[in-house]
């Protein structure tokens, strides 16, 4: 494991994180929960209610997400208890896969937000024997309104201005779960979240499609090589048709669903989590890795994965010198400052505006809550 190089403290500037968010921004938190995953996405503000809605992706440790969600409510970003828009304000919770480091705090999150706040819960349908899995299932069952679903690749869900596409697991992997024929990491639900997604404007003369400068996230969960191989098949790169016929028919405009602004690297930077072609396809502007300072029990992130990501972001075949992770916009929840005390930079908050990111750090340790008032902006 290559420990992240300390980042200059002077490039982290105190600011008002909440005030820095604009209505249409996609806001993404990668919480510092050590060798685990806990993420939260704030969808763009509803023009009707004036509040944002929240998607939770994994809750690997108790004590982290509920205080963050409550802080977002107090900050006025999410509807408070008793407000009509509190119902359904957490339209989706995703347990990417049932490893302890992804669901240990899940029952706590679900139990903390009753009263109809949670609308839907996804997991891959891989039943695991650990205690936290039983707790999670019981917590869902205590709330009658929560829709439970097991999506597979290609499933798409629109929530407000956002579109959420399930990249994995392939249904071919899902159909092997019952025999435990799928490695549990490859059961992971990986997601692409785009906002604002393409919309149809209602028009009395005929509705019109409008494409925005959107922001895109890919959340890789713990998907490994096998799962990503299905993703690459299921979501091929489609070259644009440049022929006159194509333009006349407005077909074959080409797209790459895997292209993203932000990539949350799968499996804490495990060597089995990413490969070169995959990261090249994604071509992220910002790459985030959830990890612990000394590599933890498993030595994540692996140097192999780190080098794969770096090579994808900066090809060195031309012999040029490798840029630092910070210059390649690769950041870790285990980052520290270059102060003598090596202060933890902790949880990451990303504000995405028309695909352009700004990165905030909250200075919390894995065992500490996120204090939004302590946000510091990384200046490039």
């Amino acid at each position, binding site marked *: 494991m290559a420990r992240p190089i300390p980042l200059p403290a002077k490039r982290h500037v105190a600011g008002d994180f909440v005030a820095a968010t604009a209505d249409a921004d996609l806001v993404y938190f990668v919480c510092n929960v050590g060798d685990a995953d806990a993420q939260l996405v704030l969808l763009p503000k509803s023009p009707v209610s004036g509040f944002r809605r929240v998607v939770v992706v994994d809750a690997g440790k108790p004590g982290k997400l509920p205080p963050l969600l409550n802080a977002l409510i107090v900050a006025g970003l999410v509807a408070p208890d008793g407000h009509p828009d509190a119902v359904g304000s957490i339209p989706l919770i995703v347990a990417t896969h049932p490893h302890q480091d992804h669901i240990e705090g899940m029952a706590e999150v679900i139990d903390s937000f009753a009263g109809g706040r949670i609308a839907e819960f996804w997991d891959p349908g891989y039943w695991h*024997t*650990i*205690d936290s899995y039983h707790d999670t*299932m*019981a917590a869902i069952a205590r709330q*009658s309104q*929560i829709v439970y679903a097991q999506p597979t690749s290609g499933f798409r869900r629109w929530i407000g201005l956002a579109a959420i596409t399930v990249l994995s697991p392939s249904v071919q992997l899902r159909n092997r779960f019952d025999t435990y024929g799928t490695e549990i990491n490859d059961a992971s639900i990986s997601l692409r979240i785009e906002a604002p997604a393409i919309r149809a404007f209602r028009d009395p003369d005929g509705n019109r499609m409008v494409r925005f400068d959107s922001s895109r996230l890919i959340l890789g969960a713990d998907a490994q090589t096998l799962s990503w191989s299905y993703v690459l098949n299921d979501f091929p790169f489609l070259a644009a048709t440049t022929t006159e016929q194509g333009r006349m028919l407005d077909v074959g405009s080409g797209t790459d669903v895997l292209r993203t602004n932000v990539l949350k690297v799968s499996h804490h930077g495990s060597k089995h989590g990413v490969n070169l072609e995959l990261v090249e396809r994604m071509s992220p502007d910002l790459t985030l890795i959830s990890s612990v300072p000394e590599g933890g*029990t498993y030595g994540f992130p692996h140097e192999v994965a780190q080098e794969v990501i770096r090579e994808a972001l900066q090809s060195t075949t031309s012999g040029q010198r490798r840029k630092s992770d910070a210059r390649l916009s690769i950041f870790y929840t285990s980052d520290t400052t270059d102060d003598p005390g090596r202060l933890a930079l902790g949880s990451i908050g990303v504000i995405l505006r028309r695909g352009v990111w700004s990165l905030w750090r909250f200075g919390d340790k894995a065992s500490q809550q996120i204090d939004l008032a302590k946000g510091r902006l990384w200046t490039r």
Partner: protein
Amino acid sequence: MSFDQRTAEPRTARAPGRPWRPADTPLADGRLEPAAGDRYVAVDRIDGTVVTLAVAPWPLVDGATGRLDFGPVRNRVTRTATADRLQRRVDQDRAERGQLRRPLRVGDVFLVRGLAGPPSRWAAVVDLTRASRLAAKAALFATAAPAPLRDELRTYGLDRRAAGVVRTTDDEPSDPEEPPPGPIAYPAI
């Protein structure tokens, strides 16, 4: 706007439940009695030579929901073990009990007595993987697809015997014409 996906289960009462004694195991037929200090040890993940174990007190069966209740989170821990050492300890136990020797897999579950130090020092290790997998599956389906309410079953022209899919428990009335109120999913685990 939302509508109910299921009848909400009651919150687990911390009233003493019965220790889990899964069918077709030494716990069911009295060959093994659950004891204080017994631990439910599940193989959460295997990364090369490192096995991560989710360790919880031996569960009780919640009388209200039929679910396994592992008690307060503060009493649970995650431990790691070296794969070959754990494999040797498990093999030893399996040989003594005439069980199939096989490689460790994610999802394997053991009742461990005297869990302290390395696996070689554990007092007893009993493989309960099959029963535990069935219990996890039941936990999922009791959430995702609980059985209909009793009066709904009647509406469908089904009763529990006719459906033939619901396991009865000792404390339920034997007369299907006089069922107690409430969902039947809970005691079905």
